[in-house]
């Protein structure tokens, strides 16, 4: 019997250097070179073996930077065809060996949804983006129209919307729709729910489950928000630290989801942090005052006669479905966008006072530019002691001399957050700070926030945008729920 996806002795290393020169390297035997490389190289994973049957829905879970995305990229051929790495072993799709196949050859069999949807969007209109892969596969216009209508209905996107004005979650939906349009029977999805609101995430998971059970699709999903995904999956591939010295991770396969849920409940980190409910002073000064604000973008109304006040020391979490204007509201408050009507007054309008605002962006790449992690942390920092506390908390001590942009996505996100709070702002804006973070990293981030609160003597005002149910109770005690105008 052939499996939908079978991995045999798959190993991956980003270490492309040759072994040290000694007598052995004089002998040009492939086998000997292999043995020598094995000893020298640091492997992300080594000799992985697993099989996935048609119709199975698999969750791949594990800490940030452990190699989950690398595994996905090794299957769809991005590694080693587009990203260089040393790959060894065999990959079979529906019984066919595809280990040496190009990305294009593998794409006929495997559909991939990657992280960072923003970087993958080619066209400026939603409908063009969705039909593009179907055009490449030579589908008929009638079939494309039917599929486009179905996918637009599923995602709630509008055909002629400009892709540049979509929110992070909407972009993620768009990229997922593009992959579903290609109708490959094996789907690899790398954190497709990261920026999605709970309802959209559940809709997508229900659809994936339906595809797996009714249409025999094989779904492999990488995700940190496990509590959301577990009810839908058949098995969990848990990436854990390997016992071998030169190997980073191994996979533990959990056949029984309930057992895995029990295991998750007993691991200690889940109980380390506790919510601090701040008591707000009713007489505190108003920092932001929004009066009868109306704002629209490309004829799409986001706010209509909206009024709101934020007082010093308050901790707000802004909630709402994708594309309802959460990030836009933060940008309006900070002055990067101007309301169409109405007014926003702020205590921090003046340039000098703006330095008291800290803003953690969704994408940390924009905020990291110093040559070393150390320089990044100390830039504009107010207290050396506090930075040292943060280094200790986030475990940056081993990477202080590294270039910030050489870190993994999760590490960059933590560094971006640490750099901003090291400046000890009076107001902190957090835009989806926990996207792509595992539980340990999430805990570090929340501890960092608590440290800042202690330092500011509870005078810190926090405005967060998040879809992450793990983090929402700890990010604030006041909630503003936005909704879309229909």
């Amino acid at each position: 019997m052939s499996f939908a996806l079978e991995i045999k002795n798959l190993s991956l290393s980003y270490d492309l250097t040759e072994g040290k020169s000694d007598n052995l390297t004089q002998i040009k035997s492939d086998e000997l070179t292999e043995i020598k490389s094995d000893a020298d190289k640091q492997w992300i994973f080594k000799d992985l073996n697993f099989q996935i049957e048609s119709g199975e829905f698999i969750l791949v879970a594990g800490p940030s930077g452990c190699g989950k995305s690398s595994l996905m990229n090794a299957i769809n051929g991005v590694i080693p065809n587009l990203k260089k790495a040393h790959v060894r072993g065999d990959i079979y799709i529906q019984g066919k060996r595809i280990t040496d196949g190009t990305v294009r050859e593998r794409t006929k069999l495997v559909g991939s949804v990657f992280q960072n949807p923003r970087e993958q969007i080619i066209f400026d209109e939603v409908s063009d983006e969705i039909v593009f892969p179907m055009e490449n596969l030579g589908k008929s216009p009638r079939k494309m129209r039917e599929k486009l209508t179905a996918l637009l209905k599923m995602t709630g996107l509008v055909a002629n919307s400009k892709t540049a004005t979509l929110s992070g979650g909407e972009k993620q939906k768009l990229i997922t729709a593009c992959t579903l349009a290609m109708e490959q029977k094996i789907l690899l999805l790398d954190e497709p729910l990261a920026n999605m609101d709970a309802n959209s995430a559940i809709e997508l998971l229900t659809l994936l489950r339906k595809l797996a059970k009714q249409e025999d699709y094989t779904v492999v999903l990488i995700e940190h928000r496990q509590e959301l995904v577990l009810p839908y999956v058949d098995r969990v591939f848990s990436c854990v630290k390997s016992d071998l010295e030169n190997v980073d991770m191994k996979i533990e396969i959990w056949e029984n989801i309930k057992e895995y849920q029990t295991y998750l409940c007993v691991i200690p980190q889940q109980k380390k942090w506790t919510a601090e409910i701040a008591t707000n002073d009713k007489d505190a000064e108003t920092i932001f005052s929004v009066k009868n604000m109306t704002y629209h973008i490309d004829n799409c109304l986001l706010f209509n006669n909206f009024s709101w006040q934020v007082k010093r020391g308050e901790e707000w979490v802004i909630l709402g479905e994708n594309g309802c204007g959460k990030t836009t509201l933060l940008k309006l408050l900070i002055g990067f966008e101007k309301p169409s009507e109405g007014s926003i007054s702020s205590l921090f309008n003046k340039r000098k006072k703006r330095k008291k605002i800290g803003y953690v962006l969704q994408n940390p790449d924009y905020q990291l530019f110093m040559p070393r992690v150390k320089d990044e942390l100390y830039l504009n920092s107010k207290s050396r002691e506090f930075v040292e506390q943060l280094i200790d908390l986030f475990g940056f001590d081993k990477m202080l001399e590294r270039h910030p942009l050489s870190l993994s996505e999760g590490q960059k996100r933590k560094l971006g957050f640490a750099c901003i709070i090291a400046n000890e702002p009076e107001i902190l804006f957090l835009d989806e700070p926990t996207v792509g973070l595992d539980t340990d990293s999430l805990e570090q981030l929340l501890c960092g926030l608590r440290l800042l609160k202690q330092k500011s003597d509870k005078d810190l005002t926090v405005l967060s945008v998040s879809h992450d149910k793990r983090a929402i109770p700890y990010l604030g005690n006041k909630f503003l729920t936005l909704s879309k105008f229909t």
Partner: protein
Amino acid sequence: MCKESHAIHPILSLVYSLLLFVMGLLFVKQVWFWLYLITFLILFLLFRFEKIIIKTIPFILIFGLIMAGLTIINGNKSDVLYAFYRVLALGLASILSISIKPINLVRAFNQLNIPRWISLGLLIVIRFIQIFREEMRQIRQAITLRGIRFIETPILWGRAFFIPLIIRVLSISEGLAISLETRGFSTEVDGSSFEIICFKRRDLVFSCIFIACLTFYIYLFFRRF
């Protein structure tokens, strides 16, 4: 099925845009250059290009003034004027090219059996300019958010601008390459078209007036020889 649209056929737009630019450069020294500009502006207004014209005017005026300003250093009064006129000719030509929807240009090229690597290459270049502009805006905002000011620390500001810009450009290039590959794009397969970009009556009327006007100015230009 042919899509209903107010735009002119993308290939016609591209060709007419090039013609307007080249002829504009030839005509800058003519006394009737202003008439040339106004004629085609009226034509564009008749064919509903007013939004693009309004968007283009500020950029062209600023760019024109810069070019004229640079010419003052070494040139005389008429050279300055001609430098400004050349930018106006470019602006006039750009109205048509800006109106082209990139995907329609690709589809039109595909219908003419032009290799997909050319049409898609063109599309990526056009898209990349838009992405680049958006990235610069985001980076400038990020710099402001970290409290870095050009006036106070120009070197740090430069670092904070160019390093993320380079990284983002590399990252987006890689993302787009992966995106194309994993969405089945191939230069070897023809693929199909979701919409047929066909020539409409509107294109015919526009072409007739355009060619008539252009022929008239070419005649004026050559009459003096």
